[in-house]
């Protein structure tokens, strides 16, 4: 392992790495991100390896495991190079055929190619798949190309060239200026202008200064940061090192959730490699920059995603936030100026340095520049990670990229921004996605979670769900968050049980307003957002619950009944077998009946009924 002592040595080594691999050489890169791994990608990889060895091809055909490609719905996915053939839903039994196709005239395995659900056409290349076609993957583009545990791969695709550029004559002020001109805003949620935050830190005379990468991605439904950390950890490190140079920080921290073991592992490997190569540590690339990064694991607290709570956690304390001001950029870790930014924000820095602030600012809208990474999940055909320019409409996301709502159901709402965000109704489908538009609509960009909901989702239930989450995760220090969310959740529970009244709606709004206005930190201040947006856009649904004691989406257990349609039931008894409360009676081959008094409305019978004879009203 070379210890690179200068920018020149880095570039020479990069060239050597690039020369070492023939671009025409066949290679199979299999996605081994958490999603595909759970679908069996590891077993596929193992089988491929075995086959290659058995056929003596291990020196002719390369096999690589990469990070998340983003199209998790179709996993396990893989790409056959050099053609760039994209295979999806690959199983162990397909391995032999894939290996064969790599040598026999390179004809792709048709049945493993992506198939357009409407036209039936097969698509060969990744970039032609509709899911990818409308994306602009400036942060995630390399995920499918590199082995996250090999720094050489990162160098091959141009990694650490931004750092080289900065250290060859750029000044810290120039770096901060670039970030400002690019218009980069914090991708963790609030969207604070990054350049401004850096400036505040720079101006402060106190020393030492610290930088922190917030990798405590806790929003349920969000896994962008995880995929970037697993798939391209060096892109984040490069951003941090550039940041250290710009802010004159000597120590950095990456605070990552312990619930992301693969990310922790890959970060550890990347850090060790960067140190070995002289890209981290003392006198980086001979520039005189001294910078060390420490990896800190979270211990299971969503609130630690809040910057002051995160800092407290690094200091060995409970994750209870402090009132701001003073902001961490003035007084943070150990009382010193500290810049905390999200994973995606740090990863954007090398991109801005390499391609220029003006280029970056040309993407997006007037006040929201660059791309945003969303995790598109829920009731959507194409679930996965999507990177798009700011300003794209919700319609394009849901239908153009997401492939619409499955099973012909109606789109009802899109929840953006996690528990701190709000529900945007289907009527606002042409809303451009940027910070301002979302805030005006009552929601929030958040860190990019986008959960699609259809007609079978009850918005009262959704609001209650998020309040339950926040009640669980509230640190409990300040009164309005601790008690206010509890009371709101209680009211929502009554409403979902048919025990609510219209006065309760008024009370709910008052409580929501108060919690938002008076809570100590961002968690409490945004906790009421799901309630406020659902009340604003889905009031009729709430009114149905309180006036008619009816749940239009047929979700709230106390307000629905399960019934067996005797004309459709074939008496197979499958439902009886799964019913834990013994609520279903009937003889074999005769129509069965559900006794409402015993029925728990758990839905187990619905899952197994073949003739679809069970009706929920």
């Amino acid at each position, binding site marked *: 392992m070379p210890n690179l002592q200068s920018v020149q040595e880095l570039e020479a080594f990069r060239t050597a790495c690039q020369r070492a691999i023939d671009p025409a050489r066949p290679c199979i890169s299999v996605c081994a991100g958490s999603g595909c791994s759970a679908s069996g990608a590891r077993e596929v990889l193992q089988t491929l390896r075995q086959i290659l060895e058995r056929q003596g091809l291990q020196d002719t055909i390369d096999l690589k495991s990469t990070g998340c490609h983003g199209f998790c719905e179709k996993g396990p996915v893989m790409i056959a190079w050099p053609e760039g053939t994209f295979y999806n839903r690959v199983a162990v039994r397909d391995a032999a055929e894939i290996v064969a196709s790599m040598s026999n005239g390179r004809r792709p395995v048709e049945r493993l190619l992506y198939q357009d659900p409407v036209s039936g056409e097969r698509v060969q290349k990744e970039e032609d798949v509709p899911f990818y076609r409308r994306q602009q993957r400036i942060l995630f583009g390399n995920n499918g190309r590199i082995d996250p545990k090999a720094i050489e791969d990162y160098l091959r695709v141009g990694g650490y060239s931004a750092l080289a550029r900065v250290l060859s004559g750029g000044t810290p002020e120039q770096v901060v200026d670039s970030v400002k001109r690019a218009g980069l805003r914090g991708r963790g949620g609030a969207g604070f202008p990054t350049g401004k935050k850096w400036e505040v830190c720079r101006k402060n005379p106190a020393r030492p200064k610290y930088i922190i990468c917030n990798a405590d991605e806790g929003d349920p439904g969000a896994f962008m940061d995880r995929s970037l950390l697993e798939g391209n950890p060096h892109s984040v490190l490069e951003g941090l090192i550039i940041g250290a140079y710009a802010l004159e920080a000597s120590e950095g921290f990456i605070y990552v959730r312990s619930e992301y073991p693969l990310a922790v592992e890959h970060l550890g490997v990347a850090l060790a490699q960067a140190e070995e190569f002289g890209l981290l540590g003392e006198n980086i690339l001979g520039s005189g920059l001294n910078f060390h990064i420490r990896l800190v694991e979270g211990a299971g*607290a969503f609130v630690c995603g809040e910057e002051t709570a995160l800092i407290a956690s690094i200091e060995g304390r*409970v994750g209870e936030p*402090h*009132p701001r*001001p*003073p902001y961490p950029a003035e007084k943070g870790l150990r009382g010193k100026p500290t810049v905390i930014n999200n994973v995606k924000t740090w990863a954007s820095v090398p991109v801005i340095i390499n391609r220029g602030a003006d280029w970056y600012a040309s993407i997006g809208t007037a006040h929201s520049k660059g791309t945003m990474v969303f995790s598109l999940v829920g009731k959507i055909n194409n679930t996965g990670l999507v990177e798009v320019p700011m300003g794209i409409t919700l319609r394009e996301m849901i239908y153009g990229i997401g492939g619409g709502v499955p099973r012909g159901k109606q789109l009802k709402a899109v929840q953006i921004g996690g528990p701190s965000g709000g529900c945007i109704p289907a009527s606002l489908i042409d809303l451009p996605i940027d910070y301002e538009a979302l805030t005006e609509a009552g929601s929030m960009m958040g860190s990019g979670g986008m959960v699609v909901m259809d007609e079978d989702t009850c918005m009262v239930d959704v609001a209650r769900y998020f309040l339950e989450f926040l*009640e*669980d*995760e*509230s*640190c*409990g*220090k*300040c*009164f*309005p968050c*601790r*008690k*206010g969310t*509890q*009371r709101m959740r209680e009211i929502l529970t009554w409403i979902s049980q048919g025990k609510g009244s219209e*006065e309760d709606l008024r*009370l709910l709004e*008052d*409580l929501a*307003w*108060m919690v938002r*206005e*008076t*809570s*100590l930190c961002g968690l409490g201040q945004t906790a009421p957002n799901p309630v406020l947006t659902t009340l604003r856009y889905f009031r009729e649904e709430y009114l149905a619950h309180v006036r008619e004691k009816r749940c239009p989406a047929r979700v709230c257990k106390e307000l629905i009944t399960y019934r067996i349609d005797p004309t459709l039931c074939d008496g197979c008894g499958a439902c009886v077998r799964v019913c834990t409360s013994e609520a279903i009676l009937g003889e074999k081959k005769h129509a069965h009946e559900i006794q409402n008094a015993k029925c728990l409305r758990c839905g187990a019978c619905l899952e197994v009924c073949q003739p679809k004879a069970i009706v929920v009203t």
Partner: protein
Amino acid sequence: MPKLKINGIHVEVERGTTVLEAARFLGIEIPTLCHDDGLKPYGACRLCVVEVGAAPRSKLQSACTLPADEGMVVSTRSARVERARRLLLELYVATCPQSKTIQDLASRYGLRAVRLTPEFEDCIQCGKCVRMCAEQMMAGAIGFAYRGLHRKVISPFRAQSEVCRHCGACLYICPVCELRCHGAQPETTLCSGCLNLAPACLSYHEHAMCFLDPCAACELAGPARKDLAKSGEGIPVHGKGGT
């Protein structure tokens, strides 16, 4: 020496002064629950929130933790602040109706009714006892544990602390324990808001200070008793049913 404006009054203070201290220096009253001059500011009760900045970018922030800054514009009595205070107090009374401190604050700041069911918790987690024990008594016998709704003040592992010196400072400083409401009917969360220290409304008062919904005691034996009102002996209660 930052210069700031509170309720339109200009004031110059030493760097490090909080907005709460600056306001008190001017004689402006801001309600607090978790604040004590002898303890480090905590910012948990949120009752001292004030409006900082100019609309539409103004925010509510806790005055006890906010360092006074040059050019700051603060309002302690705006409509937004008053609404926030009343709603907070409504939640406080519902959580801990037996605290006279909280009842007095509620009536002082215009709370007329409590729409939430009472919980009768013994602790509002203002943290005064914990900070007192740690900062003033240097014992650290009690503290917070757990998170969210499970969070509470306890001594670790055992109910009886090994380092507790039985000084009683925690009892002394507690805003819930210090003065218990002696109202006759604790189930009615909002009492008649007696602002004096005498036991509440079981006897007839010349000048009823009740300007709220009368509690059951008043209706049974006090000024709001129906037959007394008829015969001219009772004093009509202001704002019966709320003004």
